[in-house]
């Protein structure tokens, strides 16, 4: 479960990761790992700690598709849209995933249980189509397998966790 965002907790995470060369991306990864997203209130703290402008931090947060500016659902499901997956039913699976969850890519279900993302290649191209649920990869996923994956209740322990900095 992600920690609840607070300025104090955020400042600690920033301080822990502000060393080394070019620390901005590691700091933002660490914030997202801890809180599930990068809160707007973290931006000036990061800017001050790293001696860069708020605009720089904002620019980086909004550039990278992994970095979220708002909390994700309890579980994140990502469907690969790369060509290798397209070659074995990826287009249909992408449509099915959006229909099944009732959201478009990049959106969270109304009950807050699931965020649906698209991803361009998981490197599982000989086991396509590929899907991740909370970062855990699954290969050879058809519509039925997808329904099974999302039928399980979201696991609280891994919500919104990325790979860390």
């Amino acid at each position, binding site marked *: 479960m992600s920690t609840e965002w607070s300025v104090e907790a955020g400042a600690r995470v920033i301080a822990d990761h502000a060393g*080394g*060369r*070019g*620390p*901005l*991306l*590691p700091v*933002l*990864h660490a914030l997202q790992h801890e809180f599930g997203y990068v809160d707007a209130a973290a931006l000036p703290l990061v800017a001050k700690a*790293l001696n*860069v402008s708020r605009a*720089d931090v904002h*620019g*980086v947060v909004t*550039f*990278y*598709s*992994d*970095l979220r500016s708002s909390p994700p659902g309890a579980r994140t499901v990502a469907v690969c849209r*790369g*060509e*290798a*997956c*397209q*070659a*074995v039913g990826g*287009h249909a699976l992408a449509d099915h995933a959006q229909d099944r969850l009732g959201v478009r890519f990049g959106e969270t279900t109304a009950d807050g249980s699931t965020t649906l993302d698209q*991803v*361009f*290649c*998981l*490197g*599982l*191209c*000989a*086991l*396509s189509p*590929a899907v991740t649920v909370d*970062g855990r*990869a*699954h*290969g*050879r996923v058809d519509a039925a397998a997808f329904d099974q994956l999302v039928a399980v209740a979201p696991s609280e322990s891994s919500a919104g966790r*990325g*790979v*860390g*900095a």
Partner: protein
Amino acid sequence: MTVTVFVPGDSGARAVGADDVAAAIAAQASARGSDVAIVRNGSRGMYWLEPFVEVETAGGRVAYGPVAVSDVAGLLDAGLLDGEPHPLGHGLVSRIDWLERQQRVTFARVGVVDPASPDSFEAHGGMVGLRAALAMSPIDVVAAVTESGLRGRGGAGFPTGIKWKTVADARSSVKFICCNADEGDSGTFADRMLMEGDPFTLIEGMTIAAYAVGATEGFVYVRSEYPDAVVSMRRAIAAARERGWLGADILGSGLRFDLDVRVGAGAYICGEETAMLDSLEGKRGMVRPKPPLPALSGLFGRPTVINNVLSLATVPMVLAQGSQAYHALGVGRSRGTQVFQLAGNIARGGIVETAFGLTLAELIEDFGGGTRSGRPLRAVQVGGPLGAYLPADGLALHLDYEELAADGAMLGHGGVVVFDDTVDMGQQARFAMEFCAEESCGKCTPCRVGAVRGVEVIDRILLGPPEERAEQVALLEDLCELMTDGSLCAMGGLTPNPVRSVLRHFPQDLGLTPVQAGGAR
């Protein structure tokens, strides 16, 4: 006696249940009173057989696959731990035809060693290349890499030794080695497999590069979509530091070099080397104009070697076996081996490493066994999202840098994605533009705006009135030419490749006759 059982910890194997299989073997063998040690090795690259379980026997490693949890009890009954026959059995791994027909150099240890164990790495020839390098002068190491003919495996194919020479000759108190592990091309997974299956080889290769050019710090920039590779690399770097393979006095030679893993954040463009540098510096991943070359002014403005995972992981083999041994493999100006990745609609997908010179047909039919669906093959995309689509009658092409380039295609990072006859090539052309629009860094207009216009024009060709198609095709051709000539980097510059290949080889999917598709090449 303890029996060693190998169950891949490779993320591909895990995606089809290897963790559960490993747990089931451990639990059930123990319940039967058998003493087993489970090693989570890398994958041999035969993904249609994953989870691919191997058992160490007196006669060698015996293989079974694909193994499901429900197969484990039956396998143990049949004598899995003694390597006894079973319907899922494949006999000795070393005698599997698909592997025997390959020449694994870069991938020699992947699937063989325990990626968590420096001892296992060293027992299989690890560190021989670095020791050989340290016995030579740095300039001779550069020369050896140049003479081997090794070219950049990331896609551009630039001679690795020439790049190193530029950095070696640059004068600076700080130089960097950056490994580009932002393997974003769909259909490619060799970098991931190597980092997950044989991470110490990459560390060894980067250390050799550091010695050759006089660098003291290195970064491995791994995409965030590869969490297992990040874990594997970080674990190996920590173990290497403990062994004195990284740090202030490497192998007692006085060489100082250390490494850090940095994780990307979901931007394809960061696989472009200058965008990767910006990302490493903590900026948006925006492409830089060249010159200055990164070799002279790279990370934080310092001379920087940027090489792909496969290039760096091949260097230890070149040093261990000699540059001539590597140069003896291959054809023309494409020397050594290429790690091909067979993907998409393919019966036997995975890694095929052979000397350059194989044809696409040999790769797809002999190794790949044709389409997974069993339907006729219609198109093959070689070299990732920026590579051309080739038609079924174009598979006689030899897979080397020059022959592909002469045909308007490219080898790229060695990914080969197969499509059957259900593919809509009009949609694939549209996707190429859509992907570029999604992933463009936005720095230059031909790419940022051109890709959006490309989607619109293709939509008008696909959905608009037939009598306007010829006009729209002329517009698309014009746009492709502009993007090719006017873009700052390969993203915008090569996106027209797949689009033009569809115009050329599959005009009917755009509602065109071959004549209407005319000048397209």
